[in-house]
């Protein structure tokens, strides 16, 4: 429970500070601190994110930072995308894809810093 609490504290801060779910910190911590299998860690992290994101959204909403229309515009198509991604995962070897995606993330990071 203490370990779960530690994971939760870091995840909440990361999530609301950067606008992400927090999986980037939850997944590796579940694996290293609680000996989770990678797939179960990912799935459990996604479930934890429901609660963290609701609290983060409420706090940001109270501060007037949330654009509700644009959230729907991007969030609803993402639900379709998720279904697609899960179907693809079962069919393809994802290693080359992972490297390509990692390279894309670095490119976006550079673009963000330069803009």
């Amino acid at each position, binding site marked *: 429970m203490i370990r*779960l609490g530690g994971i*939760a504290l*870091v995840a*909440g801060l*990361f999530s*609301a*500070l*950067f*606008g*992400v*779910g*927090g*999986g*980037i910190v939850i997944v590796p911590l579940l694996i290293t601190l609680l000996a989770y299998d990678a797939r*179960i860690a990912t*799935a*459990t992290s*996604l*479930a*934890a*994110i*429901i*609660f*963290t994101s*609701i*609290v*983060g*959204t409420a706090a*940001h909403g109270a*501060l007037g*930072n*949330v*654009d*509700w229309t*644009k*959230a729907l*515009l*991007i*969030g609803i*198509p*993402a*639900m*379709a*995308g*998720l279904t*697609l*991604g*899960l179907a*693809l995962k079962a069919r393809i070897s994802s*290693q080359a*894809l*992972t490297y390509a*995606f*990692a*390279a894309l*993330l*670095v490119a*976006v*990071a550079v673009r963000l810093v330069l*803009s």
Partner: protein
Amino acid sequence: MTLEAVAVIVLGVAAGAVAGLFGVGGGIIFVPTLTLVLGLGQLEAEATSLLAIIPVALLGSWRQTKAGQVRWRDAIAIGLMSAGTAVAGALIADAAPERALRIGFAALLVLTAVQLVHRARRAAS
């Protein structure tokens, strides 16, 4: 429908697909899409991304629960105990300079990339 709206829908689908494929949340795609394509500020993009994550996380956990992959007790414990720092994170983001938030987010993207490559290499070996 404007070109931006089409781009956002396409990137929304891509964000969801990435979430399903790599198990990373949609947020790392949502935030840059909202800033670079829709012109939101970094703070508004992050706040809006959090809201957009909720339906994706709901659908994803429902699917993963059916596959028997979710440990709900731990998930609920983490979720509930993260509430305090989530509020703190929102307050810090709200007070932080735009530039600092943007650079912090860029660092998070690089960290995510490193972690994905590390995970893929470990899975391969």
